[in-house]
């Protein structure tokens, strides 16, 4: 999970605070030390951390604890508010030029994932009924043009290139003319990635900018970037002026503190995040949700949105009803599995559920291939067994194992998991009810 480590640590610290009852200056200081550590571990820039800590401390110590809140909740509130303020409070959408084609220029360091991101952005635009054109302006890296062509082929978007013998400025101009002729309404320019201290590259980017006057210049930043993220963002912003940021490689175990750093130095919104290497693993970035994600509030909104685009809405509603009434059966489980498969890797989906950000997930190794076995097992059950798993005794288990080509152990494991899932859903529903009653800050720490 993106900020998993961070949220876990913050939760630990803040729950320490809660147990002390009253909030003293010393408490705040101690808590802030942990917050600082957690942010640094997540690769948030040192200076950004320092400022953040100072702001929060100033507010926390000077602030009167609101009557309705415990001191711990109060600190969480402040940390949350300041984090939200740092990340920006609302989602920032791509803008379109009034006179097509709309031109987006992608800039960034080598290896930050520009070319792949170009393809992902093109696919995103296509989904919005636009007709994009990809432009290969990285004439330096060997096979960069070939890579863009392959990516373009994957998303079925035309790629404009003039080989590596023409200047990128010329290519970009010609590309815009080409788009005009072909009636393509969006142009995505893939530029060469080099180091941010490379003056020649910066000049070239400035020239491209002057030549095609892009609607937006998007800085592509690898979310694994360390302390240097600040320098990179600063340089690109100063020299070319950026309009937004796309974070890449926000999958796996990346904590992504770079997001905070980049935002803090440029004040420009993070517009998208690449969350995996598959071409549709790309989504709008929600800064407000990110802040609550840091605090371990989960990212229900993202999950719901993700589910909406992939899941049959009617089925989802039925499912929700069943979850509430605890009538959840193996049939639903199977159904859900099949729908989840459409949503991408299971581990990713699970991460978005509140309360799963922390330790629980670590013990839950999710392998997509296991799903195949699970499907087979469920399909070997009778209808009755599926709706009433309590029926499944020893001999039934044996039959199911043989029928599905698995072992009794695997069947047992699934039954156990299913029981856990049911329980979890119950908890989850209770939690939601609690949230409605008690306000949002009660949720991550039910004991407060």
């Amino acid at each position, binding site marked *: 999970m993106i900020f998993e480590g961070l949220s876990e640590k913050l939760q630990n610290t803040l729950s320490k605070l809660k147990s002390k009852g009253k909030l003293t200056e010393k408490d705040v200081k101690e808590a802030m030390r942990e917050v600082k550590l957690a942010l640094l571990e997540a690769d948030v820039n040192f200076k950004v951390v320092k400022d953040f800590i100072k702001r929060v401390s100033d507010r926390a110590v000077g602030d009167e604890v609101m009557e309705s809140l415990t001191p711990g909740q109060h600190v969480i509130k402040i940390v949350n508010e300041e984090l939200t303020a740092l990340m920006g409070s609302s989602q920032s959408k791509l803008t379109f030029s009034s006179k097509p084609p709309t031109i987006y220029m992608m800039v960034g360091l080598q290896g930050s994932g520009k070319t792949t991101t170009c393809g992902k952005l093109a696919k995103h635009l296509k989904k919005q009924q636009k007709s994009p054109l990809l432009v290969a302006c990285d004439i330096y890296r060997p096979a960069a043009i070939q890579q863009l062509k392959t990516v373009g082929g994957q998303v079925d978007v035309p790629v404009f290139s003039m080989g590596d013998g023409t200047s990128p400025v010329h290519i970009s101009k010609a590309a815009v003319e080409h788009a005009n002729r072909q009636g393509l309404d969006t142009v995505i320019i893939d530029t060469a990635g080099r*180091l941010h201290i490379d003056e020649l590259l910066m000049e070239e980017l400035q020239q491209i900018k002057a030549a095609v006057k892009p609607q937006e210049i998007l800085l592509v930043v690898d979310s694994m970037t360390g302390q240097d993220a600040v320098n990179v963002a600063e340089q690109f912003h100063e020299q070319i002026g950026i309009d937004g940021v796309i974070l890449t490689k926000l999958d796996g175990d990346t904590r992504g503190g770079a997001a905070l750093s980049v935002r803090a130095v440029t004040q420009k919104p993070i517009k998208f995040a690449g969350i995996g290497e598959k071409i549709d693993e790309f989504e709008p970035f929600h800064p407000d949700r990110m802040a609550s994600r840091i605090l371990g509030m989960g990212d229900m909104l993202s999950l719901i949105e993700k589910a909406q685009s992939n899941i049959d809405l009617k089925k989802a509603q039925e499912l929700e009803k069943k979850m509430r009434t605890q009538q959840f059966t193996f049939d639903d489980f199977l159904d859900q599995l099949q729908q989840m498969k459409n949503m991408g890797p299971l581990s990713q989906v699970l991460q978005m559920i509140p309360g799963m950000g922390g330790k629980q997930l670590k013990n839950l190794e999710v392998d997509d291939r296991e799903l195949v076995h699970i499907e087979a097992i469920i399909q070997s059950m009778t209808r009755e067994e599926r709706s009433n798993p309590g029926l499944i005794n020893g001999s039934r288990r044996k039959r199911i194992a043989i029928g599905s080509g698995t072992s009794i152990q695997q069947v047992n494991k699934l039954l156990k998991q299913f029981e856990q899932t049911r329980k979890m859903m119950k908890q989850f529903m209770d939690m939601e009810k609690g949230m409605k009653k008690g306000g949002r800050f009660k949720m991550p720490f039910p004991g407060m």
Partner: protein
Amino acid sequence: MSEQTKTGFFQRLKQGLSKTTKEFTDKIDTLISGYGKIDEAFYDELEEILITADLGFDITMELIESLREKVKEVKTDDPHQVKVLLKELIINILSTGNRELQVEPPPAVVLVVGVNGVGKTTTIGKLAHYFKQQHKEVMLAAGDTFRAGAIDQLEVWGQRNQVPVIRHQEGSDPAAVIFDAIHSAKARNCEILICDTAGRLHNKKNLMNELGKIFRVVDREYPEARKEVLLVLDATTGQNALQQAKVFGEVAQLTGIVLTKLDGTAKGGIVLAITKSMGTPVKMIGVGEQLEDLQPFDPSSFAEALLGDTNETRIADDIKI
């Protein structure tokens, strides 16, 4: 060419050093002595320097702790001396293990692993050049059959170095490519075979299986070859690099690290944490985009660069004030 290529790490290192040693010596002295004694503010500043170099919080704290002890031991209150002590501590960590590439006597296989975008393929191109300079027979294997354009990219490096590249189609089994490459290397009496691999962290299981299979092929088909498994790390990467090293360390017996993109402003301090916790030495560094810009790692220069710039910024601050 040589003029241009040296604008990388060492040139800047030298510039930094000459600045600090000649003109500015007096200023540093006054500045450092401005601290008078080594106080908490001094340690705080050292802490900041180390953290902004991506060393990470834990190792920074460890270093500062050891430094405090050393300072007590040596009974110094000269900040200059303290910096020397800190540098020694850093060099000490980085000098772990054997930093030579083990390719003698031939044949040898060099497997290059790492996540996406760290510069694996480029590093292979430079490695090929490095070995060619030593008059070795080199061959490349395009084992990254996953990323679009990776094979073509390696092919270009092969042409630039005039070394053969063994390739299959995109999407084919990487282990099969390596298998073919090994037999081809044997047939042509090639001394060093350098293998590219796909970079992936996301799907850990697949990565493991794929790499595991490659290693099995190498072990089985080429038992007589010396083996180097180099993990390529991007110097701009922060704390996640440690995670990368651990994940790859689980699959492969890593023999060394190549730290790339050191020609920017990033310092790559995370290698300290990696070398310290895993014992894997840094063997080579990438300091630029030219073929020549891959060089053996020198802990002393690295430590100097890590702490060196700090002199300049302090001076700069001093002048501003």
